[in-house]
């Protein structure tokens, strides 16, 4: 049994609160992992900015062969969510059948377990659900 290095990661998506990184120079908002320099302009002054948690699903796929941490949840929807603040975030969309989802669906963030937690630590982060308030 090979142990995946992921198991011991202290990195990962934002934990309990959804945030993105704002460039002080060009003001571009980008995903949380851009913490060393701005992907748009290359300068180094980035700061965390909390997101409201709502957005639109702009691209998605349905995963039938999951990685280890998602075993048992397949088929599940994962996609790119363009947050209302403008930044693109990769995240699963849960609580909805793959057939009931489409590009353009309004979604909002919720808290879920990201890993099965059988190694001890429980890893919470944001997944998204269809936003009932956003279908108007």
């Amino acid at each position: 049994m090979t142990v995946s290095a992921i198991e011991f990661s202290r990195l990962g998506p934002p934990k309990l609160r959804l945030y993105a990184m704002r460039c002080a120079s060009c003001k571009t908002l980008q995903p949380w992992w851009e913490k060393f320099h701005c992907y748009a302009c290359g300068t180094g002054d980035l700061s965390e900015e909390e997101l409201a948690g709502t957005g639109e699903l702009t691209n998605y796929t349905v995963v039938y062969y999951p990685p280890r941490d998602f075993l048992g949840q397949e088929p599940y929807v994962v996609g790119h969510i363009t947050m209302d603040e403008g930044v693109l975030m990769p995240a699963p969309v849960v609580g909805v059948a793959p057939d009931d989802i489409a590009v353009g669906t309004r979604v909002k963030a919720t808290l879920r377990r990201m890993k099965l937690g059988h190694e001890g630590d429980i890893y919470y982060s944001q997944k998204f659900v269809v936003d009932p308030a956003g279908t108007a």
Partner: protein
Amino acid sequence: MRVGVLGVGKTPHKIQHEKSLRDLIVEAGRAAIIDAGVTPGDIQSLYVGNVGSVGFNFENSTGLMAAHHLGVVPAGAVRVEAACGTGAWALHLGCVAIMSGLYDTVMVLGAEKMNDLATVEGTSIIAQAADSKEEYFSGLTFPSGVALTARKYMQVYGLTEEDLAHTSVKNHHYGARNPMAHLRFECTVDEVMRSAKVADPLKLFEVCPMTDAGSALILCREEILRDQPDKPQIFITATAMGTGTWYAASDTLDDAHALLARPAQKAYDMAGITADDVDVAEIYNSFAIQEPLGIEALGFAEMGKGWQGASDGSTWIDGTVAVNLSGGLLCKGHPLGATGSTQAVDIVEQLRGTAPEGIQRADAQIGISACRGGPGAVGAIHVYQRLEG
């Protein structure tokens, strides 16, 4: 500046439970050494492409292992890793080593033994080629990351899943005729459409298998090959590498295009040719959608039209340019570290005229290989030419 291809070799591409990683390395390496007519002692430097032996096989130092068991000691040996572009990067370093004038003869070898693990473990290890700790923690896998690109491509250019299915039909037509390929069956558009879903809209026949294989090339200074006129006079006339974004979230269709288009233009300039001159191409297609992306980036079609060749015949064996006569990764499989070197070996066979029956392009003179990795992060282009003295 040209690099002579003195010899090539490869193992079958398939699941090989009876062989270990080192078995594959030695089998491919020895085949190339014999083909080149050299001895291990003639090799002055060894570049071994291997992505995940630590994860797949629980062993490390693949370069040193290869040097020892191929008997190229005391020459220098190193392991090279650049995601799915690994084999192509080993080839690039081999070419650079010859072009620099430092070495006369070097070996480039790529190998991967992926089937020591179940698919779910393999999937997790493959995902480490992208940012598995941040972005891919979100439940993305390699198939699903590329599926996002496929959906975007279909949306932007107004295509259907059937349109894209032709690519798999073409690859499988040739893969069935390649005795070294992993998957050897022909299929129809309908069968592609009915194959199991992997990551919507990608289906099983549009996804490469996990494969065990090795492949190798012996490279030399131009004069060394010129001095052996009985040998096929195949030269690598351009090698160009590049990087793009490491993240699916920032990988736009323009980025996916530029990833290969930038080094392709460099390579054409370096070789002094244009896209129109190319007879055969091996284009990275671990997922079917990546073939049209590559066709467009290499300048064989406009953006959004790269899929048409598989449908109208222009990328088949007697088309304008024959693409993936080996069956591509869809049929050969994608033994990560070996993929780039196998593409090179397959093109060399085409130019030598020694490709298997049914997949030999008539009178192929100029070939190109395009490898992609990361999947938006690594772009690698090599141009090969038959140049009789």
